[in-house]
């Protein structure tokens, strides 16, 4: 099993470690509910160094990325980031990813750890554009500093203007005396904050520096379990749960990152789905009966007929109720529709809602 540069640091902090996407990763430090609320109310730091980083360079970079991703990469200017996905040519999704425009003809792709090898082969197999691809996944550590106090936690470590950094933009520069660190205003929690890409050899020094500088904001390390509950409260898709090779971006509600203004893999098929609709759609739901929905539980209508299945579910620590996402037949997607989750043979009532489940106060 692979280890991130911080493996021994997590163990020393008393983290519970689990195998995840081929890496030994911290799933929790003190408890998922505590850690979740820490991010919602204060600030937390996640080691997500297992994520993959590819660099795409040269004249062929833009045409290659336009062809393999669903979003319109030509809209990106240096310093901007785009959420996108890789359609698989068969109506499914190879992976979802972030595309960073570093400079003209130079991009960084951030992909899921479990898909690094698959994505690498997939993108290379379509590189008839002579773009220069480099897989730097093993060279980079990635820390997510998330929560309303993220700026307070980080501001003494860099001259970058973190406070003014707009969502889905980034800067590259000096961070705690290390050059060329990428700091982006992105994350997977819905509580704001930053993601910080650092070379592995500096990873431990920077992690310790963030914990020390962040003490003023009471920063704490957060594990993957809370990362999952935080993203699920926002209705963000998780590859392997809510999207995969059997789900289309349109079914998954990712039409907003599928742009038909350009040619790309599966364009015609997805355009057809967008125009004429799909048989099923990904929806969010809240339990009104007791019980927590789990991946693969069947979803039924009130007549007891199976209309879909759960892809993600949890007890929401912020809302203190059980929430989930799943695919249902298109006649059941309207908010307020009553559905039933088959919890090991027992039908439990739930209601379709439009994510995000959690909204910051005042929004």
């Amino acid at each position, binding site marked *: 099993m692979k280890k991130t540069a911080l493996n021994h640091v997590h163990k020393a902090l008393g983290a519970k470690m689990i195998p995840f996407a081929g890496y030994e990763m911290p799933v*929790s430090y003190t*408890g*998922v*509910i505590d850690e979740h609320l820490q991010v919602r109310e204060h600030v937390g730091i996640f080691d997500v160094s297992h994520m993959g980083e590819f660099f795409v360079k040269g004249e062929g970079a833009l045409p290659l990325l336009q062809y393999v991703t669903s979003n319109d990469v030509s809209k990106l200017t240096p310093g901007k980031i785009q959420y996108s996905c890789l359609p698989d040519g068969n109506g499914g999704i190879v992976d979802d990813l972030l595309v960073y425009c570093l400079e003209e003809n130079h991009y960084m792709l951030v992909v899921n750890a479990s898909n690094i090898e698959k994505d690498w082969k997939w993108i290379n197999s379509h590189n008839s554009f002579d773009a220069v691809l480099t897989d730097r996944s093993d060279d980079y550590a990635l820390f997510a500093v998330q929560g309303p106090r993220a700026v307070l936690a980080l501001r003494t470590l860099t001259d970058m203007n973190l406070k003014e950094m707009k969502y889905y933009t980034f800067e590259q520069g000096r961070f705690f005396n290390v050059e060329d660190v990428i700091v982006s205003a992105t994350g997977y929690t819905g509580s704001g904050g930053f993601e910080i890409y650092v070379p592995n050899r500096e990873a431990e020094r920077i992690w310790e520096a963030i914990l020390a500088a962040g003490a003023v904001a009471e920063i704490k390390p957060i594990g993957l*379990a809370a990362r999952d*509950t935080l993203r699920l409260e926002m209705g963000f898709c998780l590859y392997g749960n809510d999207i995969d090779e059997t789900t289309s971006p349109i079914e998954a509600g990712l039409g907003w990152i599928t742009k038909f203004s350009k040619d790309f893999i599966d364009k015609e098929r997805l355009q057809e789905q967008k125009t004429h609709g799909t048989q099923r759609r990904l929806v969010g739901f809240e339990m009104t009966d*007791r*019980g*927590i929905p*789990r991946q693969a539980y069947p979803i039924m209508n009130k007549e007891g007929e199976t209309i879909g299945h759960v892809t993600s579910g*949890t*007890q929401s*620590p912020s809302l203190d109720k059980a929430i989930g996402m799943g695919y249902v037949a298109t006649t059941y997607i309207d908010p307020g529709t009553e559905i039933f989750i088959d919890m*090991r043979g027992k039908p439990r009532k739930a209601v379709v809602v439009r994510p995000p489940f959690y909204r910051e106060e005042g929004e």
Partner: protein
Amino acid sequence: MNIPQDLKYTKDHEWVRIEGNTAFVGITDYAQGELGDIVFVEIETEGEELDSGEVFGTIEAVKTVSDLFMPFAGKVEEVNTELESNPEAVNDEPYGKGWMIKISFDDSADLSELLDAEGYKEVVG
């Protein structure tokens, strides 16, 4: 890890406190730690006679769900209703306020499979 000497244990990470022909059952400190934050304990078998290994309830943590098994044959006499409003008691005091059911049993119940504290310590390594 807390494994009290005066209790018996199962390989399913439950503890049993035997008092004459009744027994209290809960999950071990190790089990609550592995499950993480517990949010529901659902036991709908009060009054039922169940066989050894039969499911008497389920426990839902944020991350996962787990069945609860009868440590030996008996009747579910009482359910700890406090857990409905305070399921985190299982995390905080697995051997105390976090108890789950009280069983009555007769001489036909087979207690020979139960482990003592030393035996359970080997199970959890």
